């Protein structure tokens, strides 16, 4: 995903400011026609979805509920998101694991079949090409979901390395799941509602685990994961069954699980302290700087063997120059690119995401500061429209996560 909704708004504002109304209208409709639609597009519109361009897709930013209401309802009841703009792909072949390990920081070999993890695709400099959830379905089948906005570059990157790998005799091939749609069901009602639609016992499926199973009469890929901090699932469903599944989920919840758009999704992930690629992580950001050191497998820290490992292992040993931190601040909500200063007014970093937390009713933000300035409780200044407001470094997640783990 590239850029926050706010930036989207800002960039549109700039465009508008530079052109006359007719030209804008023409351009708007031209680009509108080029946008891709998920199979749920008509369903969104029928449910009052306000569709906006996002990473080349026309996606709902919100429905009838306000972003505030939707965010709170996700944590109290549940949310259903259409995330079909994200790209699911499978790697198959007996060398899939060693192949993927060249590109990501995770200990893929060490994953038990049917489990997954958040990981980062790195470049030669140790920077992030994308963040992604990867799952080991079996030793010769990996399932990967990458960001919509990164799809083209990710696929090009994987393809290039796959060619070289195969040329040396490696056994790996891919399948891009364009025949499937992706729904995210999140919140405390996610499991009880989904249990109505499958015979498999979901109480045995824990956070990060994966299963292929029948849901509502079609074969789905189910991952117990999400982007809200709540318990929940991402369901890859054959596209011809996606609308039926969405309807069934809403019906079974008796209206408590609400359709939720990108606006609340952004608030939820920020409250959960999760990165938005393109904002909080970019080509130049290493996983260590981003606070994702935990995602670097133990074996990988010792052996390296992934792109940019030298840089990353050096940072692990010596500490990174900058670190991602959370803030709670006074005044107006900080947004991405707000400057961070120390008490004396020296520039020490920049906010990468920020907003008003619907659940905490205060401003939350994340950004990067110089190492040494990153301690929890440290007071800094955040500049919004030229004025300095107090921002206190705060541990993330801002709202406690509720992942379903074995007790």
């Amino acid at each position, binding site marked *: 995903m590239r850029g926050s909704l706010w930036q*989207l708004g800002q960039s*549109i504002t700039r465009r508008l400011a530079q052109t006359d109304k007719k030209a804008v209208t023409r351009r708007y409709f031209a680009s509108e026609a080029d946008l891709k639609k998920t199979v749920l597009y008509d369903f969104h519109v029928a449910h009052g979805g*306000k569709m906006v361009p996002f990473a080349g897709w026309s996606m709902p930013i919100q429905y009838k509920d306000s*972003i505030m209401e939707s965010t709170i309802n996700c944590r109290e009841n549940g949310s259903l998101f259409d995330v079909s703009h994200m790209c699911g792909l499978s790697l198959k072949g007996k060398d899939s694991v060693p192949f993927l390990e060249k590109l990501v920081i995770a200990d893929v070999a060490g994953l038990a079949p049917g489990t997954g993890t958040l990981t980062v695709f790195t470049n030669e400099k140790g920077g992030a090409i994308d963040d992604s959830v990867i799952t080991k379905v079996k030793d010769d089948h990996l399932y990967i979901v990458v960001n919509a906005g990164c799809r083209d570059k990710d696929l090009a990157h994987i393809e290039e390395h796959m060619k070289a790998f195969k040329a040396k005799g490696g056994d790996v091939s891919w399948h891009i799941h364009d025949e499937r749609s992706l729904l995210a069901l999140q919140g405390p009602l996610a499991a009880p509602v989904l249990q109505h639609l499958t015979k498999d016992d979901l109480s045995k499926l824990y956070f990060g685990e994966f299963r292929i199973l029948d849901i509502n009469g079609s074969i789905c890929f189910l991952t117990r994961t999400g982007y809200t901090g709540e318990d929940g699932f991402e369901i890859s469903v054959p596209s011809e069954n996606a609308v039926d599944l969405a309807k069934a989920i809403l019906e079974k919840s008796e209206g408590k699980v609400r359709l939720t758009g990108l606006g609340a999704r952004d608030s939820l992930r920020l409250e959960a302290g999760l990165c938005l690629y393109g904002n909080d992580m970019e080509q130049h950001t290493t996983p260590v700087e981003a606070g994702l050191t935990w995602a670097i497998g133990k074996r990988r820290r010792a052996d390296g063997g992934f792109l940019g490992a030298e840089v990353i292992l050096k940072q692990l040993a010596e500490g990174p120059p900058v670190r991602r931190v959370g803030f709670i601040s006074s005044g*107006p*909500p900080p947004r991405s690119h707000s400057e961070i200063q120390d008490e004396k007014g020296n520039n020490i970093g920049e906010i990468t995401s920020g907003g008003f937390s619907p659940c905490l009713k205060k401003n939350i933000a994340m950004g990067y500061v110089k190492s040494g300035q990153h301690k929890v409780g440290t007071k800094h200044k955040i500049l919004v429209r030229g004025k300095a407001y107090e921002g206190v470094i705060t541990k993330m997640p801002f709202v406690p996560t509720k992942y379903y783990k074995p007790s």
Partner: protein
Amino acid sequence: MASRMLWASRAASHLRISVFHRGFSTVLKDLHYAESHEWVKVDGKSATVGITDHAQDHLGDVVYVELPDVGAEVKQGEGFGAVESVKASSEVYSPVSGKVVEVNEELKESPALVNSHPFESGWFIKVEMNDAGELKNLMKPEEYSKLCDEENSSH
């Protein structure tokens, strides 16, 4: 005026934020309106300024309002403050020129008044106008109503 616009209005309407099922926004008679979606209510030389129902509807939940200090000078068409919703940050432009004589302190504690009562307790500032003649640069209620309809129907 067209050079700089409240993004709440045009951009948010391009984001199609409140197009369906909200019905029609209220436009009050006796007020003057700016193309950038501020309203002004005139009482002698005093002008009360706020943002319209249409603007608040497009912005969504307002969480913070940044206002000038009393005594500050404002100019027609120039920014004097900002309004922050959960999703966006937007500049607010003054529909008249003059000196700020009062700001709505209540918005500090209760920014949501902008959503619930955009034309009453959700007002932003009171301005002592330099030139009442500037009011002719603003839109009449019927014209403004038409603008809102156009924005809503253009997508």
